[in-house]
């Protein structure tokens, strides 16, 4: 039943509230086709993290709730699931800000990702070796305490840890936040590789619009809790409004998307 559906994730018109009063998402719909990379773009506070947390069911721990709409993962509603069940179903979120276990070694961090799977010691070693082929840097630092590794290494730890759970789908929340440009490229290469070689579907929240779209198949732009624009990554990269607003290619000053739409509708009325 789930096998013939093309989308591994299907979010339909969700609304999310925090503490029963703060409306974080108004109306977000998005789809992630199996085996694809989808970028979720937008500024701070646009609702990217909230969307990802709604999917991984981690909203509850922040007193958030999906109040309208539906989320289907692999053909089934996620409504009654909790985060550890979602991990069991193959959906793993890499939280914003890396969130490594600082007092554990790099290797312990990665192994902890396999917690939900019943693996023997030998299986774990095998999986570790496989993971290290993607994250060569981590293998060198396997015995260091995670808190003392660099920001880029911590991001790699977080992704490697998530991969240890053998996910079908990864939710990456701003994986390049605060990283130097070479590291950003390195992280995206790894993400791309994991997508292609391991067949992991990826939903990626990013502020770094340019590089995110270059590494994605499809993109959504959200602002103040609403999807404003969507399209293939290529079409978004070539879109004038996206260029102006998110890629900073413009002669005028900064604007937000709604202002552009308002201007457009005004222009239409005038014409």
């Amino acid at each position: 039943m789930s096998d013939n559906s093309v989308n591994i994730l299907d979010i339909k018109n969700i609304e999310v509230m925090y503490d029963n009063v703060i409306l974080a998402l108004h109306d977000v719909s998005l789809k992630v086709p199996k085996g694809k990379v989808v970028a979720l773009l937008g500024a701070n506070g646009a609702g990217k993290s909230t969307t990802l947390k709604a999917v991984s069911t981690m909203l509850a721990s922040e007193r958030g709730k999906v109040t309208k709409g539906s989320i289907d993962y692999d053909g089934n509603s996620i409504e009654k699931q909790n985060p550890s069940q979602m991990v069991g179903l193959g959906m793993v979120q890499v939280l914003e800000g890396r969130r490594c276990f600082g007092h554990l070694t790099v290797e312990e961090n990665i192994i902890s990702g396999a917690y939900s799977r019943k693996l023997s010691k030998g299986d774990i070693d095998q999986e570790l070796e496989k993971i290290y082929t993607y994250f060569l840097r981590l293998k060198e630092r396997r015995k260091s305490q995670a808190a003392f590794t660099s920001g880029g290494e911590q991001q790699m730890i977080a992704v490697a840890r998530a991969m240890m759970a053998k996910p079908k789908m990864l939710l990456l929340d701003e994986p390049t936040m605060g990283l130097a440009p070479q590291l950003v490229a390195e992280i995206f290469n790894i993400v791309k590789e994991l997508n292609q070689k391991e067949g992991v579907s990826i939903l990626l929240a990013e502020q770094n619009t340019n590089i995110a779209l270059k590494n994605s198949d499809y993109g959504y732009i959200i602002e103040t809790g609403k999807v404003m624009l969507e399209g293939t990554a290529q079409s978004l990269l070539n879109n004038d409004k996206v260029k102006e607003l998110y890629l900073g290619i413009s002669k005028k000053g900064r604007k937000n998307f709604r202002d552009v739409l308002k201007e457009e509708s005004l222009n239409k009325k005038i014409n």
Partner: protein
Amino acid sequence: MANELLFFMEVLVGGLLAGTMYSLVALGFVLIFKASATFNFSQGAMVFFSVLAFCGFMQDFNIPFVLAFILAAFLMVVVGLCTERLVLRPLMNASEDTVLMATIGLGYVLEGLAQAAWGVEVRRLDLGIGDFPVPWIADNLKLFISALDITAGLVAAIMIIGLFLLFKYTKIGLGLRAVADDAGAASSIGIPLKHIMLLVWSAAGVVALVAGCMWGARAGVQFALVDLALKALPVLIIGGFSSIPGAIIGGLIIGAVEKILEVYIGPFFGGAIEGWAPYVLAIFFLLYRPEGLFGEKIIRRV
């Protein structure tokens, strides 16, 4: 001169060994603090509850010693299970302060249940280990050291080694350390918090039982055991709330310092400074080293 030194040694060793009894109580706090970053105010009540049940099984039902101990340990696992189910799970997303308040309430419930089930009178607990000097040591080393103190020291050593192995080399131990570092991240990769909570509350319950046996054998099984837990507070401040070795060493320091101060400085204050000297020490630690000797420092990259 030699006699004075011998006397000092005796005070010191006696203090250190008595300190391990504090360590045992403090251990229970550390376990829960690691997993939920909450000071468990019901730890004292757990000590009282567990050891009273142990006595009750032996004295009211004539269950043999070992079986009674196992039953009491099992009972503490059940208490851990109920606590997780009825108190912690509904408060899963509540703030740490809320959980802290809940542990105070839990303490009252446990005290009440224990006394309702087993009565309020002081019971004697005979472990078969006397609280008097070991003749062999007294004869050969000229030190008067209680057999109960030595036993407490050994038991504390065994427990710390056992817990260390559990945390370092088992899967659930890795899970616990992950939760202790970042509970949110731990749940994002599928570590079920409820299993970890169940583990630490059960472990803390069993540790409470052991501590209760030691203290019960010395001072009688009575309600005052609840307040004994307060003695663990300076131990934790000195050792660090999140460190198991810290709890042990903090206990040793408190034990030794309070005895030495009592014997050598006590007379200037009219004696009985044992009761408050540890708290004074704790205040100095709060001022100059608030994370304690072994508390996990907040690691920040610079």
